[in-house]
């Protein structure tokens, strides 16, 4: 059973990412705060007795469920699932190479000018926008897999789908992001 200190540290370590993840989904700070708070309460209420190692996965799942609940409550489920392209075989066109969008030059200068900082902020804003544009399942898979750093099996368990689906969602999400960011002249 996780001690109060462990639980507090765990929540502290995940709360900001959880908030941003919810914002990417619901596009509303207030709603995202509610979702994160709801998730924390549910975790503590129902799984507070679990060992600390089990909490990250449980929290991811609860957060996903709370986000879905929010959409249900808002009766915008149609909007959420309007883009079901991730279930269709809409192959991304062939004129795009992911490799081109990866900046392989190791570390530009460490010292950043104000101009550089502004540029980074703009890039971040563009990335956030493109992530919000992803279909929900692709976004969910992408964020869990690469941002929360869960492996494929864990992501599949948290999303309640197969590992194959996770791979497909992630692949499509990366392709879509790469293509969109390239179109904006952004290289990572």
């Amino acid at each position, binding site marked *: 059973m996780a001690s*109060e200190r462990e639980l507090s540290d765990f929540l502290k370590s995940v*709360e900001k990412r959880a908030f941003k993840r919810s914002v990417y989904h619901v596009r509303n700070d207030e709603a995202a705060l509610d979702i*994160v708070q709801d998730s924390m309460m549910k*975790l*503590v209420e129902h799984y507070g007795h679990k060992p600390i190692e089990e909490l990250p996965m449980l929290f991811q799942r609860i957060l996903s469920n709370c986000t879905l609940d929010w959409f249900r409550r808002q009766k915008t489920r149609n909007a959420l699932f309007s883009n079901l392209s991730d279930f269709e075989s809409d192959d991304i066109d062939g004129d795009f190479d992911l490799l081109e969008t990866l900046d392989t030059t190791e570390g530009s200068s460490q010292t950043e000018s104000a101009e550089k900082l502004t540029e980074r902020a703009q890039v971040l804003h563009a*990335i956030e926008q493109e992530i919000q544009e992803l279909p929900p399942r692709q976004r969910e898979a992408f*964020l869990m897999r690469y941002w929360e750093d869960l492996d494929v099996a864990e992501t599949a368990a948290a999303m309640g789908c197969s590992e194959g689906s996770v791979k497909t969602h992630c692949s499509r999400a990366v392709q879509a992001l790469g293509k969109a960011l390239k179109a904006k002249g952004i290289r*990572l």
Partner: protein
Amino acid sequence: MKHSTTHSTPSLQDRYGRAVAARLSESVEALPYDISERLRAAREQALDLRRSLKPATQPQVLSQGAAAALSLGGGDGSLWHRLAGLIPLLLLIAGLVAVSALDDEFVAQDLAEIDTAILADDLPPAAYTDPGFVQFLKSRLESAQ
């Protein structure tokens, strides 16, 4: 003209995904103060809930323990735990047997006292006018003969 990247290697895909995610992490560090504070408040509220739940769960655990003891352990406890669970049951049975034995003894003692009092007492003259007593004397004489 480039060819489709759906065939790009998983490592490249992972690399790109992580590069995007790394940029996203910057946004987490730059959260506005009020959002951070509200997240902290949410966390505190969740921890308060845990504190308030704790006392309620303790009797529940105890009652579960008692139930487990009465149902001979039930769970996955060791042999000693199961035997320890039997102790209250054995004490209860021993107590019931002792109460029953004491009760029998008290009843027998009361009856003996009544019998003694009757036998030691003088027979009242009115007893000889009682037809039932006369009959009793007759039957005793007959049986003695």
